């Protein structure tokens, strides 16, 4: 990852969402993007020019645009039509984004489109986030990594965030993932946790 001092940046065409620029570098704000927050908290996951990414919950394409600056290709899955309009606009300018309008809970919808990827990034506001990750891990190569951004409040508002967090980690572990890093994204994002796992090698 590229750091200028203690500022995380990505190299690419600016003006996607009026982000701050440092010369030609686009500042990647940890308060706006959960992935940027994860890097600020310190993680071992690197995205390089060879990385192929499946991005679930692409939303308006804000974080996607930064990921695309680093990655080889980003398969960006989004379900709702309004954010999809924005995502398409971002994807028109970044030739390595493949925008897919589909439901992440039904990966069979995009089987004919998506190749095997090195990184599965998931940021969806759904109750069954572990299940979605497990179903989509069919696209992940052996040894590939999963980053799950857990919105604990989307799973169950009545449960304590810690309980939801532990349940999700357990579900991923029992599905065969090797859990590497678990951390809360505070102070950047409240009640959000990041879980980094590896899919075991063949």
């Amino acid at each position, binding site marked *: 990852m590229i750091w200028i001092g203690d500022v995380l940046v990505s190299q690419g065409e600016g003006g996607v969402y009026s982000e701050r620029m440092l010369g030609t570098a686009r500042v990647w704000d940890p308060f706006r993007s959960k992935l940027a927050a994860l890097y600020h908290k310190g993680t071992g996951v690197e995205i390089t020019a060879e990385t192929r990414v499946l991005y679930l919950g692409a939303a308006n394409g804000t974080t996607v645009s930064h990921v695309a600056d680093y990655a080889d*290709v980003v398969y960006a899955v989004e379900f709702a039509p309004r954010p999809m309009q924005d995502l398409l606009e971002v994807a*028109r300018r970044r030739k390595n984004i493949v925008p*897919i*309008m589909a439901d992440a809970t039904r990966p*069979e919808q995009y089987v004919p489109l998506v*190749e*095997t990827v090195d990184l599965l990034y998931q940021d969806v506001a759904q109750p069954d986030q572990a299940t979605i990750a497990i179903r989509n891990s069919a696209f992940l190569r052996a040894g590939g990594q999963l980053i799950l951004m857990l919105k604990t409040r989307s799973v169950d508002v009545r449960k304590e965030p810690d309980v939801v967090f532990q349940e999700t980690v357990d579900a991923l572990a029992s599905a065969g993932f090797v859990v590497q890093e678990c951390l809360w994204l505070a102070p950047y994002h409240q009640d959000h946790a990041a879980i980094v796992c590896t899919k075991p090698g063949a």
Partner: protein
Amino acid sequence: MRGMIYGFIRARTPYLSNMRSYWFGDVDDGKCTLFGGDVQAKAERVRLIRTSMESFVPLTWETAVTCGACRDRADYITKLREVCFAAAERDIRQQYSGKDAELLQMVRTLDEMDTVINLLTERAVEWYQLRHPTFTRKYRKTPAHIVVKNIREKSRGALSFVAGEIERLSLTRTELAKAVSGRANDVMPNTSALIGGLVAARLMAHAGGLSDLSRMPASAIQVLGARTALFAHLRTKSPSPKHGIIFQHRRVHNAPRDCRGRVARVLAGKLAIAARIDHYRGIADLAFLESAQARIDMTGKVTGKLTGKENEP
């Protein structure tokens, strides 16, 4: 054309379990059949392919090159992107083209205008009271719009302008209400016939769309818009709400207090059926409307005197 492609892919996949369908063509035991259609046809094809995740064989760009779909990886991504853009743009258009999509925005605009007009009127009155310490609305049945008119005529400067602006907003609101009612009659003719276009549109907006409303049970429609009361009931021992938005209909609020709940329940039951006819058929069903009206009217008239059981047919 649509039916042909659909039939083709559906029919072949289950029997030839080795065949994999991808956006560029079908791969069967290493043999590849290129799909000849243009970008739009490919986008259509992608939506129709059914693959189960159990028999999942990941796609590789090399297969596409061997197949003759593209020259190299860069070309593969370019062509794939074209297909994905076409598919997404078509899906967005499809989701927005639902007749209820615009009605939804109209209703929400209307409700927000109501809120704004009420807030501004309250504020203007408070301002006016400051200049006229003897002014009060107590014991006076002056409607709000007349009060606003008086404020505009009797004050000068900014306050007069604000009052004038509230009046203009109210005019726009009236026009919008008419438009909502008219559009609702068109989009949901059965529901509108039972409860009036404006209330029908509000129900639809609360449910989140016509298809959502048509999938709701009658008991949910009955208390739609009574969220606070419903959750208070679920949490504590307070009585359950009898009605939500449908209270706005004269049949419910004109009914005697002790049988309002009953009228609301019967009305909601008929509304649930009406919403389904509206969603799946989209035209007024006169026979249904006649029987439904009769049933609701009977409930309203009879139940005040008789017990519930005697009222049943």
